[in-house]
């Protein structure tokens, strides 16, 4: 388990990458105040794998994820979701992709306050006019320990329960890729561990592709691979990470600045 230089091979070379960025650049603002949040990032995320994105604060992790997920448009470069190029697509296509091919879990504000937990889970499917697969729904609800909570509204749920509802929502539509931006940031270590275990099980048992942004070396250790980001550029990656390796790599990045 060494830190290896970032892979620069074409990400979709073997058709395994579920989602990939090619020379992605994102500039916020213009002129003197312009911020290059992403500065030519090329990275692929393999199908059926759990990848963590790490890096110092402000390194562009969230920006990368938003671009990969079709929530935001890049300044230049390409985003490939499976065989589809998401760059330069009209909003209609992006919307459909988000609804049917992508799942999300955010750090907070994941749920609509006026809907029950069950309605929140099936929201993307409702929007697509599809029915949830009852077997999958039941399995998710049981595994996530939400069986007794389905008729509750988000304000009646704990933070960990809210995150689990969000996770169920992200998984129930069988998305090609599940994105999670600091999903455990608001949780205590036990709830956090639950969520992370679930993410790992989703990759193992359901073949789900998961991309997660995190600051926590412990959380990153659940992943199959860690991608390191610094100043909007790729700064290395760790395969089969453990806490020590991740911590070391992060310290090296901080010292190198």
């Amino acid at each position, binding site marked *: 388990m060494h830190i290896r230089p970032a892979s620069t091979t074409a990400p979709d070379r073997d058709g395994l990458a579920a989602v990939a960025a090619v020379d992605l650049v994102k500039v916020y603002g213009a002129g003197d105040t312009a911020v290059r949040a992403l500065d030519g990032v090329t990275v692929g995320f393999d199908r059926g794998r759990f990848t963590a994105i790490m890096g110092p604060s402000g390194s562009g992790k969230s920006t990368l994820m938003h671009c990969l997920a079709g929530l935001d448009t890049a300044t230049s470069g390409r985003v490939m979701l499976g065989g589809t190029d998401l760059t330069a697509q009209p909003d209609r296509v992006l919307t459909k992709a988000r609804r049917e091919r992508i799942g999300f879990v955010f750090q907070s504000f994941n749920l*609509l306050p*006026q*809907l029950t937990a069950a309605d929140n889970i099936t929201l993307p499917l*409702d*929007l697509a006019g599809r029915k949830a697969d009852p077997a999958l729904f039941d399995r998710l609800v049981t595994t996530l320990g939400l069986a007794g909570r389905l008729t509750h509204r988000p*304000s009646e749920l704990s933070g960990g329960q809210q995150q689990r509802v969000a996770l169920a929502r992200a998984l129930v539509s069988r998305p090609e890729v599940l994105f999670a931006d600091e999903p455990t940031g608001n949780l205590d270590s036990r709830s956090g561990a639950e969520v992370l275990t679930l993410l790992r099980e989703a990759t193992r048992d359901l073949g789900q592709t998961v991309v997660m942004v995190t600051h926590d070396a412990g959380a990153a250790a659940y992943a199959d691979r860690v991608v390191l980001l610094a100043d909007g550029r790729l700064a290395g990656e760790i395969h089969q990470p453990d806490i020590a390796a991740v911590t070391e790599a992060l310290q090296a990045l901080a010292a190198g600045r």
Partner: protein
Amino acid sequence: MNPVLRTQLSGVSRRPARLLLTGLAVLVASFVVYATVLAQQITERSLLNGLSGTPEATDLVVREGTVTGAQLARIAAVPGVAEAAGRLEVGVQAGAEYLTVAADPGTGPLSMVAPVSGRYPAAAGELAVTPRTVQRLGLTTGSEVELRAGDETPPVTARIVGVVEPPSDYGDTAYAPLGTVSALVTEDVLQRVEIRLDAGADATAVREGIAAVVAGPEAPEVATGADVRLEEAQAMVGEINQMFAVVGMFVAVAVAAAGLIAASTFRIVFAQRMRQLALLRAVGAGRSALVRALVVEGLLTGVVAGLTGVLAALAVGHTVRPAAGALGVDVASPGFPLAAAAATVALAVLITVLAVLAPAFSAARVSPLEALRTAATTGARTGIGGGRRLFGLLFTAAALGGVAVVLAALPEPDAQDFDPSPLLLGIVASGACAYIALIALGPVLVRPVLVVAGWPLRRLGPVGRLAVGGVGGSARRAAAVSVVVALGVTLIAGTLVGGASVQVLAERELAASAPADFELSASDGTGLPPGYAGRAAASGALTRVTPYRRIDTTVGGVETAATDLALTALPRLADLDLAAGTTDGFGPGRTVIARYVADLANLRVGDTTAVTAGGRTVRLTVSGILSDMGPLHSGLVVDGSDLTGLGAKAAPTGLLADASADGEQARTAGLHALRDLTAGDPRYGVAVLADQRDQLRGNLTVVLAIAIALIGLTVLIAVVGVGATTALSVVERVRESGLLRAVGMSRGGLRTMLTTESALYGVVGAALGIALGVPYAWLAVRATGLNAPLTVPGWQLAAVFAALVALTALAGVMPARRAARVSPVTALTTD
């Protein structure tokens, strides 16, 4: 500066749109208040100009006493008097017709007439007539007419030399200089003298000088022109004062509405800032500091909004005159009432501060813990606490109590000298309590309405379901918005119900007093010669020629007229609706009676009563009671044979007829046909009831137009309130929008959802508003003492419902578009 206040104010300057939206309601409120002041000014001045018979230039009036021509000359000579015009009106017989000859100088500021054609009379024996007099009496320029002022005075021949336009044209007036008019009568007495002073003359001194001239046993009063004009105008508007009381109530409600809207918008704005306020509390800000900061913010909002509103109203108020002028209507300019402007700004500040108090206190009560919760969780509370429920129930009880008190104090129908203002104030107070109760209990009331209204929407798929869920899931917010809509709908529904009731009342009154276009009757009560009716019908210019008989009778101690004019004889009589009983089977031995007769003689349908006239008696059974007056203001409608039994002669008392077509020309033709019938016989007079009807309707139209203008302003408040509130609630939920977009809702879907939500606010509000507005309007109509029926203009109310829902949907369109344009990432990262 207080650091909390600084945080608040910097927040305000960072998000000016929110302040603007909060201030907008207050701005429009002060606009409405000041516009109302200006509208009052315009109305008052227009009424003074239009209704007073005294020219504006008049400084002093000598009246109510004896003034002779010689005294007039001495008054004109008093130092400081620029002009003195003696007024004298003499009623003369011009051929077979009645003509009023009035004295007017013809030129100068004291003249009340404007030349139309020809010239103003100068020499004796010359007259000018009004345009309608030319038409009615055929007095064209150049023609001659014989005038007879009384039986003793010899007839005078006068020549028409011009046509002049008077302030109001009744079609029977001629004008001439004073000398010509006083020559028609033997006594040298003037009715009054109007005096214009030299610029800068000392009014008091001149007044004393004039008082000295007219001093004597029957010394007249010397009053100022302003006082006289005011008195005259007040006498003229006295009859429509009751209707103005209703209008005044709507203005009061508008002010209350503005306050409630402001409170509701503040509540939403503060809810948006709940986390920020909680954070301030968490880092050690005191509650009172928070309240102070929020109240100061409200105060600033009030000042800015009040000033802007006043200036806007002033701008609009001063366009009314030119705009009306372009339409050919002469209204007065509102002027610049500065004290009222200052008072309006003060009122705006007061309302804003009052409105901000409750939201500020409840916002400052925020627990520091809220800072740690998500903003959405705080906004989504749906139920209400026990305290709030109790508060709401208390105010419900107060509102019901108010209604009970008003009901107990309702006047008798047709009560005389009844002042409706206390009752109307009571209704406003009760209505305000009902609204406070509605605000408090709103979240509970929203649900049931939504269950019904949302049912079809829920079938329409996820967007409809989400919209209903969005409204129902945050019932507090929904209630806050819907209450604003409910206010608007209540006002409109109230106006429609009140207006419809007054309209029915007016039509009834018109049917009673003017059932046909013309009435031909014998002035001495002898009856018309036989054959008149047949000849009138044969003339071709008249239709529905209906002879009738009428005699004075006594029934149950009540003296009233009885007529055999059947209620089915003329189409307009259909407006005389029955309060009880029926007209079916009407015939000999039966009578339909006016309501006041039923009340005074204590008669009910089915009662049999003795009717006496000139010593004869017949017994009649009451088959119906009219809601108001009988035709031609008679108290009894009886069969012809019963009238004969009471001693009525066979010859008709008069006949009614309609012109055979609409329009002024047909009316004149009908008049001429009737006049030909009488061949100038002075015993028979023709009354053009259609003219009276037009005049009454004209009065009503003016009042309704003013009322609608005032209510239009109130409705504007409600609609702006809806727009602002919807916009605020969309802004507040920008993160929700972002989340929905992130999980795959399309732009169009989000737009549809948010627009549907604001339309649902309209549905809920309109339902609540109509439920409250109609009963309160009925109560108000009852309280004015007008004997108006309770009318429900169903189609109009349905249209209002649809219009309000459309308006609220429209109010949501702009914010919805804006919310949908924002990228999901931006929306999610907004706080």
